[in-house]
């Protein structure tokens, strides 16, 4: 019980410079980190850091976007050994995209699946396919419970079967967008549901929310042979993805926002796939909706797809 003299309590220093001690400390740490990044790290680390600190696409100012696109172009060009273009083409005002697919014409040849893989830089190994072609019995009708995505016939169509390709339905009321905890996926003004791969945290909530199995997760590092990479890419579309993010059909926005048909329309040998502007009363897509028996998949879920299946014959 000695009465030792205790050290006097520290007296807060008056703030002369306008920063608290805590703020100064934090700033010092940041300065150290920044110095370490620029001094001791390789170019690859710098690129990785650029990816890590990349802002959300919609928070980028025009100048920041330009810089970011240049960063990515440099990164991909080095990675794939050829000049890769990364753009961020804005939606066309007054355009709402829609898609129609004629079930009576599709023969299940899967040309669309692999056309899409080539166009949109999907991973070859591990395999990612944005389009799934389902085979069903004509007698059973559209019964997804008895659908087979793994059919392998000598020739198609197989007798008594019909085929239903399914990819992202670009819902007007997309459940995937609702569940994303970080708003890394959203619906653009032209109706295309897009993903910011740099903002996706890989929680896969959207995959479980999507009733169409349209979203795919990169469990492994995607691999694309250098010579097969499509160098015309979009930030929100077909640029090479990284491991741990979700991807899906983007209606080839690198083509469609420049007025072209999506790749699957271009490669379909039977002309079963139709694409156009829902707001244009003269478009093919409007003709189909107005004159054919169209239906949407799982319409009872109120997702309001802009992808219409129909029977043309």
């Amino acid at each position: 019980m000695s009465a030792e003299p205790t050290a006097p309590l520290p007296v807060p220093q008056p703030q002369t410079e306008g920063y608290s001690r805590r703020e100064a400390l934090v700033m010092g740490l940041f300065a150290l980190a920044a110095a370490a990044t620029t001094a001791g790290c390789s170019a690859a680390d710098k690129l990785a850091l650029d990816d890590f600190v990349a802002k959300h696409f919609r928070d980028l100012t025009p100048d920041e976007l330009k810089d970011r696109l240049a960063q990515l172009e440099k990164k991909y060009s080095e990675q794939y050994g050829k000049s890769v273009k990364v753009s961020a083409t804005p939606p066309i005002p007054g355009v709402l995209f829609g898609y129609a697919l004629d079930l009576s014409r599709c023969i299940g040849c899967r040309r669309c699946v692999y056309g899409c893989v080539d166009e949109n830089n999907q991973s070859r190994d591990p395999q990612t396919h944005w389009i799934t072609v389902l085979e069903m019995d004509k007698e059973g009708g559209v019964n997804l419970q008895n659908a087979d995505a793994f059919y392998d016939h000598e020739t198609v169509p197989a007798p008594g079967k019909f085929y239903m390709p399914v990819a992202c339905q670009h819902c007007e009321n997309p459940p995937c967008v609702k569940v994303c905890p970080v708003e890394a996926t959203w619906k653009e003004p032209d109706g295309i549901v897009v993903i910011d791969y740099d903002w996706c945290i890989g929680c896969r909530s959207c995959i479980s929310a999507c009733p169409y199995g349209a979203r795919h997760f990169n469990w492994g590092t995607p691999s694309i042979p250098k010579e097969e990479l499509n160098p015309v890419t979009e930030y929100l579309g077909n640029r090479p993805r990284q491991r741990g993010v979700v991807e899906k059909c983007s209606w080839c926005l690198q083509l469609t926002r420049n007025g072209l048909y999506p790749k699957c329309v271009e490669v379909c040998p039977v002309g079963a796939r139709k694409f156009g502007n829902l707001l244009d009363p003269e478009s093919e897509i409007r003709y189909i909706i107005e004159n054919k028996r169209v239906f949407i998949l799982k319409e009872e879920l109120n997702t309001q797809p802009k992808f219409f299946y129909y029977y043309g014959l």
Partner: protein
Amino acid sequence: MTAHFRYTTSQLLAPLIFLAPSSRRDTDPLWGSMTRIRNIRLAVAGASAAVLLTVACRPVQEAGPRFGKGIEGVAKAKGVVPKPTVTLFPVAPPPFSEGAFPCSECHGLTDKVNRVPHKVDFHEEIVLQHDEKNRWCLDCHDAQHRDKLHLADGRLIDFTESYRLCGQCHGPTLRNWKAGEHGKRTGSWSGAKQYLLCASCHSPHSPHFKPLKPKAPPLRQEAIR
């Protein structure tokens, strides 16, 4: 930045979906689906409801003439979208069999022609499977002008216009083809596009679309490493 971290209750609860029993997902190739169309009656009901909804929800548009503009025809949007004029590019007719064209190299203008339907002992590679009980070569090919086709009323047309000939019987199909519903279009959804002739996909002599070899099936989940 904060704008992208707004949570709602449903967003927070959404990951709980992983806890749901997975048996249904396993039987559904669109795995992850929570409901599915169980039988055809429901499918039909759904389809008709979809049609009704689509029709009901559509803004009323002035019903304008859609046809009769010809394939080179213009589709101008009257509504919201300023739209470039749509032009269709004719494509070359599908290639003839080796050495078959021009037909006039063998068939002369003044040849005597037996116009009674009969089996010819030339062009054996052509097997007619197109209403063959009622029709034969000279119903479409012109007996005198062999490099041309003729319509039912005798008007001569080029092979590049063969769709007019096909449309004599297949009227609704021609209508849909002109509107862009039947047949393949490539190019631009908003501008210039290429179209294919009927004969590009359907051999006029046996028009049924020929089966194709499908591309490889996707890997099964368990095979992806």
